């Protein structure tokens, strides 16, 4: 018998890797199914026996409680379903603002960390080492309870240049009230944005063909500011300001940032910026010094060297960990519940859960939302990462 047959013919089924693999996977699948089935059965039985109501019908019932801050119209007569969206929008607001601010501050800190000015570099280092080694929840409590206590009551508010007013109820600012004709200004702004996009395309093509750079940044800035401004003046300044007024208890009217939002945003930003700074530092350091030297040899000045040579290359190292920081920030925004900022966890998984007692549905919905947000952020960042990734030729 030829020896080649030895391997293929005589293997017993329980020794054949293929068979084993299929059996193994089958067992895994069955036990997983059994596991979930048991949980499902238990849950149903438990809820039935304890007389807990099930189903999503509660989403249509009247909520009957107030929420501190809402981006969409809401009062006690709206439904529990509405509280879900109020909370979701508040979560998205704080996460979005936090991501932008943390990125800006984090990049600044990361560059400061590499500054050749000793004291700036050391100060940035101390900041980073202190902030990222203290639990975020503690920082949120600190900013909220320790700093809130230091702010004055509404009657002793601190004015900022007559425009902003700060007290322990929040930061008040005049809210813009558009009057008739303001839509033209908005239209002008949209037109300007489209113009800028076209301009950027044209400039890039021109540079590729002729090698002539075009001052895109300055021109587009001028477009964005001047066009709407001209329309604004031409329409006779169709905008008035609603100034906050001191009332019986506090200020009314105008716009307001509630202290819960400020404390949460501040803590999230400061904490995440410390991590982003380290990521940026590592990214910049990962670009070899030869790149700088080469750029100099080509006659590029400091600014363009950083902008055109160093940053694009360091971005490849920065993007993946930066993505996970964005995800962390979004997930950490759920700590809002500790200080009563009405985010999804606080409003929906907190008050609504309490009033209805339907834990399974509500916790499930909340987790699904976070999962969706996380997956979306990773998808967007992965797409961006793919775009800037090194194209091997």
């Amino acid at each position, binding site marked *: 018998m030829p020896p080649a047959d030895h391997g293929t013919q005589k293997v017993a089924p329980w020794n054949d890797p293929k068979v084993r693999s299929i059996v193994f*996977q089958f067992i*895994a699948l069955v036990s997983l199914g059994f596991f979930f089935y048991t949980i499902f059965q238990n849950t149903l039985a438990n809820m039935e026996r304890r007389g807990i109501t099930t189903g999503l019908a509660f989403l249509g019932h009247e909520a009957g409680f107030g929420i501190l801050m809402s981006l969409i119209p809401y009062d006690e007569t709206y439904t529990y379903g509405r509280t879900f969206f109020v909370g979701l929008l508040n979560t998205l607001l704080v996460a979005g603002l936090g991501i932008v601010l943390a990125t800006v501050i984090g990049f600044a800190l990361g560059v400061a960390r590499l500054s050749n000015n000793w*004291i700036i570099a050391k100060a940035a280092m101390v900041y980073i080492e202190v902030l990222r080694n203290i639990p975020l929840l*503690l920082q949120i409590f600190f900013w909220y309870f320790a700093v809130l206590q230091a702010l004055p009551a509404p009657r002793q508010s601190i004015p900022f240049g007559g425009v902003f007013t700060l007290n322990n109820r929040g930061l008040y600012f005049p809210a813009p009230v558009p009057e008739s004709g303001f839509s033209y200004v908005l239209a002008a702004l949209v037109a300007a944005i489209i113009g800028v996009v076209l301009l950027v395309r044209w400039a890039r093509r021109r540079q590729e063909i002729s090698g002539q750079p075009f001052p895109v940044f300055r021109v587009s800035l001028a477009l964005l500011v001047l066009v709407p401004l001209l329309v604004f003046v031409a329409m006779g300044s169709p905008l008035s300001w609603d100034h906050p007024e001191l009332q019986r208890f506090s200020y009314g009217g105008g716009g307001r940032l509630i202290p819960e939002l400020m404390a949460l945003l501040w803590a999230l930003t400061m904490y995440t910026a410390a991590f982003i700074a380290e990521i940026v530092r590592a990214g910049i350091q990962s670009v070899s010094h030869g790149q700088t030297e080469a750029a100099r040899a080509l006659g590029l000045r400091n600014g363009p060297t950083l902008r055109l040579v160093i940053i694009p290359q360091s971005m490849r190292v920065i993007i993946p960990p930066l993505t996970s920081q964005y995800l962390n920030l979004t*997930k950490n925004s759920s*700590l809002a519940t500790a200080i009563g900022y009405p985010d999804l966890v606080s409003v929906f998984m907190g008050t609504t859960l309490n009033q209805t007692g339907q834990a399974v549905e509500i*916790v499930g919905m909340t987790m699904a939302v976070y*999962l969706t947000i996380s997956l979306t952020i990773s998808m967007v960042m992965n797409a961006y990462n793919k775009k800037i990734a090194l194209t091997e030729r």
Partner: protein
Amino acid sequence: MTDLKNPSLAPPVTTVGIMGWMRQNLFSTPLNSGLTVLAVAFIYLLLVPFFQWAVWNADWTGSDQSACTSGGACWVFINARMELFIYGFFPTSEYWRVDLVFALLAVLIVPQFFERFPHKGWIGFFTLTGFPVLVYFLLVGGSFGLEPVESGKWGGLMLTLVLAFVGIVAALPIGILLALGRRSEMPVIRTICVCFIELWRGVPLISVLFMASVMLPLFLPDGVNFDKLLRALIGIVLFQSAYMAEVIRGGLQAIPKGQYEAARALGLGYWKSMSLIILPQALKLVIPGIVNTFIALFKDTTLVLIIGLLDILASVQSAIVDPAWGSVSTEGYLFAAFSFWIFCFSMSRYSQALERKLETGYQR
């Protein structure tokens, strides 16, 4: 010989000594000088009042509120409630058990900081396997003549350490299995592991803890009941194992393909080649990553206060509302912050040192 006709040039700007160092590092350009002045002014304005409050004007000794008269920080408060912050409500007569655990932990950890220590590996292995068992019997009690202490009385630093330590010790093996599963060639296994990992990594820990405290009881058959601490631990372990899996996967990917092939060529089966060849190398590579997730977990344990467990932050919070002490929230929060900082900072230094040690071979 000096040439008297041509006097020597002015000496070059000194680059040594304090002046030279300052000129180079603080005042090299006008912009830098400005930044330096601004930074110094800022630090001065921030730090001086802080030190005045926290050190010079602070009250250190005494036993109650009446000792805090100087207007600075009232550290007396921290002193007076220290037992709560460390032991929670553990019975006073049983403090020695907690102390013993702390001491054992210190003894077991110290060798890991030394380059060469006899049986270092075995000590590490014991820390992750035998030690938790020992801690269980010591803290829970009820056997060997030890008085049982229910977990409701655990608290403070001790609870924080228990949560973090159990979280990491239990998450490590699950994380290894998940990481191997994610790299498995069997599609079903791979899908299950990917889903598990992405699910837990995609949701905030607070919702996991919430699920563990509110929903877990509903999942269990009637009459089965986990105590609150155990439920929190289950939540933490599930969450942590997903992160651990990703760290370990990084290590597995860093092992050259040749190692896998060599293991196969030796005739080793899957489990043997993993446990004898691949994992020992991969795990060594990812120790810094594991320490980093441990730091993250250590900080995250504070979230258990939201489900009503009395960790160190929660015990500080419960103490600062005591009307007998006036307004001491800043002192309390600073104390908690400092305790966390000490642990996390030293661990992050340890992991950085390890990273440097491990990376020497690959550095450019």
